[in-house]
């Protein structure tokens, strides 16, 4: 079964599966700092695929390998049917890549940057204007400003325009929304939905778990390993326990009390609520939790059965995966 999968996925129709990564491993500092271990994923044509994980999980390393900027220690990858090692030139001319770090020319203006990148790819801004118009309109008033003088949100939009200027079939966006406020983040995801509708395949990484639901499929990554790959609803739908949201007047005391209760399997703060799973128990879980909280003299106790979020699933997978490490003192 595994073998069969490997065989079929290594020779798929590149028209259907523009991104294929198979068993990618990479370490730095002569093997002492593992960055990725045995990462495999495929992204289908027209898919908006999210790579979700914290800093240091290996997201950027994977992006750099897939965009031919870094060699993997082992494993293979194909972009639009091209091998990331042998065919790097073809890949570079067909993909768009927006690195996490702002990488445009700071002392060229908005317009000069755009013209420059168009020329590099042998095209003209006018030819590709339709694709970038929605985004470019927002920075057009600043077209004579130097890129280095733009605000974060504007830089991000310019970088996206430059990544799109040669009408790439595959777009790689490495943490485009990191450090950006909620309003700009929503705008950015709306832009991505529009690009997706134009048939562009998008691989996007983010440390914000709540952005996962905006993707068609996601891979959760931590410490260089994929914890799961699926649709967001499938990932939350297979959460293996009943999850309860609990709150009381004194939330921090409640958190400490619940964690010290041997009936509690996990307890994490989620905004104004605590998300709780119980060990094997008899009777109604909500009543059990309410009774315990009452016995500890908590006031205004509310307990609800809730549907898990991606962040619940991520925490569950990260803390129960025996291969995971690096999160000491787990509660």
């Amino acid at each position, binding site marked *: 079964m595994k073998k069969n999968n490997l065989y079929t996925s290594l020779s798929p129709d590149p028209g259907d599966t523009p991104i294929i990564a198979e068993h990618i491993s990479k370490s730095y500092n002569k093997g002492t700092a593992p960055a990725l271990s045995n990462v495999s994923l495929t992204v289908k044509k027209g898919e908006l695929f999210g790579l979700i994980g*914290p800093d240091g999980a290996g997201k950027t390393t994977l992006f750099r390998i897939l965009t031919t900027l870094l060699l993997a220690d082992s494993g293979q990858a194909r972009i639009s049917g091209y091998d990331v090692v042998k065919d790097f030139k073809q890949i570079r001319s067909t993909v768009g890549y927006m690195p996490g770090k702002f990488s445009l020319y700071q002392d060229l203006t908005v317009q000069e940057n755009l013209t420059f990148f168009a020329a590099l790819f042998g095209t003209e801004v006018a030819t590709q204007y339709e694709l970038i118009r929605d985004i470019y309109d927002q920075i057009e008033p600043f077209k004579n400003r130097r890129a280095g003088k733009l605000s974060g949100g504007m830089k991000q939009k310019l970088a996206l325009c430059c990544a799109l200027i040669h009408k790439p079939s595959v777009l790689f966006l490495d943490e485009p929304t990191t450090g950006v406020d909620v309003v*700009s983040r929503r705008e950015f995801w709306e832009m991505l939905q529009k690009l997706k509708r134009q048939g562009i395949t998008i691989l996007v990484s983010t440390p914000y778990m709540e952005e996962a639901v905006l993707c068609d499929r996601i891979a959760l990554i931590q410490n260089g390993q994929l914890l799961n790959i699926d649709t967001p609803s499938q990932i939350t739908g297979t959460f293996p326990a009943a999850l309860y949201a609990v709150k009381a007047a004194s939330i921090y005391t409640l958190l400490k009390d619940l964690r010290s209760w041997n009936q509690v399997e996990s307890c994490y703060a989620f905004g104004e609520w605590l998300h709780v799973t119980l060990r094997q128990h008899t009777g109604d879980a909500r009543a059990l939790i309410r009774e315990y909280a009452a016995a500890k003299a908590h006031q205004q106790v509310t307990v609800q059965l809730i549907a898990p979020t991606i962040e619940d699933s991520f925490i569950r997978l990260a803390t129960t995966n025996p291969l995971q490490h690096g*999160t000491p003192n787990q509660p």
Partner: protein
Amino acid sequence: MELLINHKSASPADNNAVIECRDLTKKFGNFLAVDRISFSVKPGEIFGFLGANGAGKTTAMRMLCGLSYPSSGHATVAGFDVYRQQEKIKRHIGYMSQKFSLYDDLTPLENIQFFGGIYGVPARVIKERSRELVRSLGLEKEATKLVSGLPLGWKQKLAFAIALFHQPRIVFLDEPTGGVDPVTRRQFWDMIYEAAEKGVTIFVTTHYMDEAAYCNRVTIMVDGKIEALDTPASLMQQFACDNMDEVFYRLARTARRKDP
């Protein structure tokens, strides 16, 4: 050398606001970066300071930390005046940002000793408490290795512990949990709660809206002004939203000055 402030002592000052701010304003030319903001923060309070990019958060925070003079208005931090006593403010607050908090090419122990020394903690106290701190953070094995090799989450916990090492009455945290994994992020908040319970005032900015709900009170800045200031529960009620993310979005999208 000044005496260490013991935040647990029941001095009369403890009943006063740790930050008191009236019509605090900062102009750059004609640009009103911070427009007459007023609030006060109590001892042991976790005070969330939110706003879209460009709303004026950083400028306000720089004034409160004694790094920039206000154009007008009044403010005291830890009892010291933001115009006349900037150096005293710096000495009596803790500060941690996502970026510039630790020296990568020093060990955790050296970082503690270095910052302890900067803040004038006596050498004897540094010696005693740094070992103890390393132990309580679970960093014994890493104590003599360079900070650069530590996972990000550990660095942030260490940076927070160092910001508290000289026992300030207030600590400013500028996006302390950016990019950290969900479990470590919550462990970090455990540390915040623990410090607040001991009476330390926490002034924190964040882009994670679930974290806004962990604060006792939250301000939301829009275009240099404070547009909302209340407990998360009251704000959600007031704006008829289910979560802080929606509250923030409702307020911040009205911003006219999106980007400077």
